[in-house]
C-alpha cells in the first residue's frame, strides 16, 4: 500500500495553565497518544465535542504548534525533523480553513490583501490574475476583491477563507469546523463547494466537526475523539459504531424526520475535566456498559480495520 499523505504517530500535546501569583500551575494533555493517517484524495473526518482536542490535533498536524511528543509524516517526510527552510517549503502544500470566518480574517485587509497574504509569508508576490482566479474558484465575483470582511455575509467570508487556503495550490487542507457558525442553508452551500473543489483540484481533506451527521455525509472515514484520545475509527462513514461514546453521539444526532425520533436515555454523570482524568476509561462515568475493569485500566485503540478503544465494544 502506498504511503498515506499524512501519518501521525503517538502525538501528544501537554498544556500548562496557571502558575501566576495565585494559581498553582496545572498540566493537561489536550491530545493523548493520537495516531492517524489520511490517504491521498480522501476526506478523513474527526468528530468530537468541545474540548476533546480536535483543533489542537489539527494544529499539531500542520505543525502550527509543537507536539510534546510524537511524529507527523507528510508525504513520507517527518515534519517534526525538518529544518525551518524545508518546513516552509512543505508548508505551502498544506493549508487550513478556520471555524470562525468573523475572526479569522483581518478586518483592516481587503479581500485581495487577505488572499495575497499567503504569498507574502512565502516572500513572493501573487502571480497576475491569481486573486481573480481564486475568487472565481470559490464562487465569488472579482468585484469583491476590494471589499472588507465586514461588508460580506458569513458565507461569503468563509468562501474567502477557503480561497485563502487555496492560494498556494496545496495538496492537503485541514478544515476546522468550517461551517459551525453558519446557517444550515449556507453550510450546505459550503460543503457542496468543498466537494467540488476536492474533485476538481485533487485535494485531500481532514474535516473536523462536532456534527456526526455532517461528518458521515461528507467523509470517507471517521475518527472519533473523546477527551484527547481517539476512541474509534469508522472505516466507512456508514459503518455501525462499536464504541459506546460513538453510539451516544449517534443517539444525540436528530434526523429531520419525526418518524425517526430517538428514545433518549438519561446520561448520568458529568464529563470529567481534562485536568483530572480518571485512571480507567475516560467515558466510564457516563457509559452504560462500564464494568470494574473499565474503571481500573485504560482501554487502548486496537482492532485492525475498525479499531476501537473499549473493553466491551458493540
Amino acid at each position, binding site marked *: 500500500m502506498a504511503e498515506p499523505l499524512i501519518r501521525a504517530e503517538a502525538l501528544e500535546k501537554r498544556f500548562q495553565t496557571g502558575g501566576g501569583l495565585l494559581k498553582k500551575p496545572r498540566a493537561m494533555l489536550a491530545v493523548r497518544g493520537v495516531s492517524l493517517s489520511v490517504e491521498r484524495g480522501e476526506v478523513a473526518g474527526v468528530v468530537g*465535542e*468541545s474540548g476533546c482536542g480536535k483543533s489542537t490535533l489539527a494544529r499539531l498536524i500542520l505543525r502550527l504548534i509543537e507536539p510534546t511528543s510524537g511524529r507527523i509524516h507528510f508525504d513520507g517526510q517527518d515534519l517534526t525533523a525538518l529544518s525551518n527552510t524545508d518546513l516552509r517549503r512543505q508548508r505551502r502544500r498544506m493549508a487550513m480553513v478556520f471555524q470562525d470566518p468573523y475572526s479569522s480574517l483581518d478586518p483592516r485587509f481587503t479581500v485581495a490583501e487577505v488572499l495575497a497574504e499567503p504569498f507574502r509569508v512565502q516572500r513572493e508576490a501573487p502571480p497576475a490574475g491569481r486573486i481573480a482566479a481564486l475568487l472565481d474558484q470559490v464562487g465569488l465575483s472579482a468585484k469583491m476583491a476590494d471589499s472588507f470582511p465586514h461588508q460580506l*455575509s458569513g*458565507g461569503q467570508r468563509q468562501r474567502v477563507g477557503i480561497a485563502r487556503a487555496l492560494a498556494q495550490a496545496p495538496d492537503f487542507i485541514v478544515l476546522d469546523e468550517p461551517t459551525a457558525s453558519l*446557517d*444550515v*442553508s*449556507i*453550510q*450546505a*452551500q*459550503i*460543503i*457542496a463547494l468543498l*466537494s467540488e473543489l476536492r474533485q476538481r483540484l485533487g485535494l485531500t481533506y481532514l474535516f473536523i466537526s*462536532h*456534527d*456526526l*451527521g*455532517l461528518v*458521515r*455525509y*461528507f467523509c470517507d472515514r471517521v475518527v472519533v475523539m473523546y477527551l484527547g484520545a481517539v476512541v474509534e475509527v469508522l472505516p466507512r462513514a*456508514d459503518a455501525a459504531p462499536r464504541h459506546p461514546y460513538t453510539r*451516544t*453521539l449517534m*443517539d*444525540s*444526532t*436528530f*434526523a*429531520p*424526520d*419525526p*418518524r*425517526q*425520533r*430517538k428514545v*433518549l436515555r*438519561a*446520561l*448520568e*454523570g*458529568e*464529563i470529567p475535566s481534562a485536568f483530572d482524568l480518571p485512571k480507567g476509561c475516560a467515558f466510564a462515568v457516563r457509559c452504560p456498559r462500564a464494568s470494574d475493569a473499565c474503571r481500573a485500566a485504560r482501554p487502548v485503540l486496537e482492532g485492525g480495520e475498525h479499531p476501537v478503544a473499549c473493553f466491551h465494544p458493540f
Partner: protein
Amino acid sequence: MLLSVENLTVRIGKVEPLSGLSFTLDRGEILGLVGESGSGKSLTAMAVTGLLPLIGGRISAGSVVFDGTDLAALPEARLRPYRGKRIALVTQNPMTALDPVQRVGDQVDIMARLHLGMDAKAARARTVDLLNRLRIPESRTVCDAYPHQLSGGMKQRIVIAMALAAEPDLIVADEPTTALDVTVQAQIIHILGELVRERGLALMLITHDMGVVAQVCDRVAVLYAGRLAETREAGPLFARPRHPYTRALIDCIPREGMAPGSLTGIPGLVPSVAQYPAGCRFHPRCLHADAACQQVPEARPQADGGSVSCHHPMEADHG
C-alpha cells in the same frame, strides 16, 4: 387555547421586521419556531414576552392573546405580572440570565420567593427538587456554586430551573441548546419535553435546527424574512412540506444514506429588513417562483390543519 397570536406585526423605528404572524399554542404542547438567522425568531420571542420596548420596538398591529388577555393592548405596568411569572423566557446564553457573583441556588430560590411568596426554606426545598428533576447531580452542593464553576450545560439547566421555579404556564426558549455539545443538547431537549407533558406547560421552542424540531415538537411554524411561510403539525410538515422554503430547509440537513452531492443548500441569503423584496419575500431564492409570486401570498388554510403562504404549494410526497 393558552396563546393565540393573530396578525402580529412589529415595528422598530422605520422598519417592519415582522409582518402579520398568526399561530397558536396550547398547554401540554411544543411549538417549534424555525427559520434561518435573521428570519425574525428572536423578535417573535420578544413580542410574546413583552420585551420589545427594550430594543425600541413595539407591536404595531395584531394581538397576542394569552389566557384570554390581549397582551399587545396592555400598558407596561400591567404586563409585569405576566413576565417571568406566567411567561418565562430562556435565552441562548445562560450568562445573560445568571448573576455571576450570586450563588446559583439563591438565584433559583428568588424566583419562587418573588413570584410565589415562599419563605427561604420552602423555596430552597423546591429548588433542590427542581435541580434533581433536571438531573443535576449533587444538587445541594451545586446550589452553593457560582456560575463560573459550572459547565455550559449545567448553567443552562440552572436557567431552565429559574424559568420553571415560578411555575409559568408558557416557556419561550430561544435557542436554549445551540451553544451546547450535542450529547448535552439531547439531554436538555429530552428533559424539556418531559416537563411539558408532565406539568401541562406550553413551550415555544425557537431553533434553527430542523433535527431538534423533528425530535420534540408537536407543531411547527416556519418563519422567513419576518413572515410565516407554513405552520402545521410536525408529522405532515416533515413528510409533505408544502412551502418551498420548508422543503429547502429540511433538505439542508444531512440524513443517513443521503447520496453524496445531494446537499446543495439554499442559494442566496435572507434579506435584511430594509431590503425585504416585494411580493413573496422568498421569491429571489425560490426555484418555483413565477410572475404570480410578485404578489404577497395569502395564508391558505390546509385540509390537514395549519396554513401555507405560497402561490404554488407543493403536493408531492417527500422522502
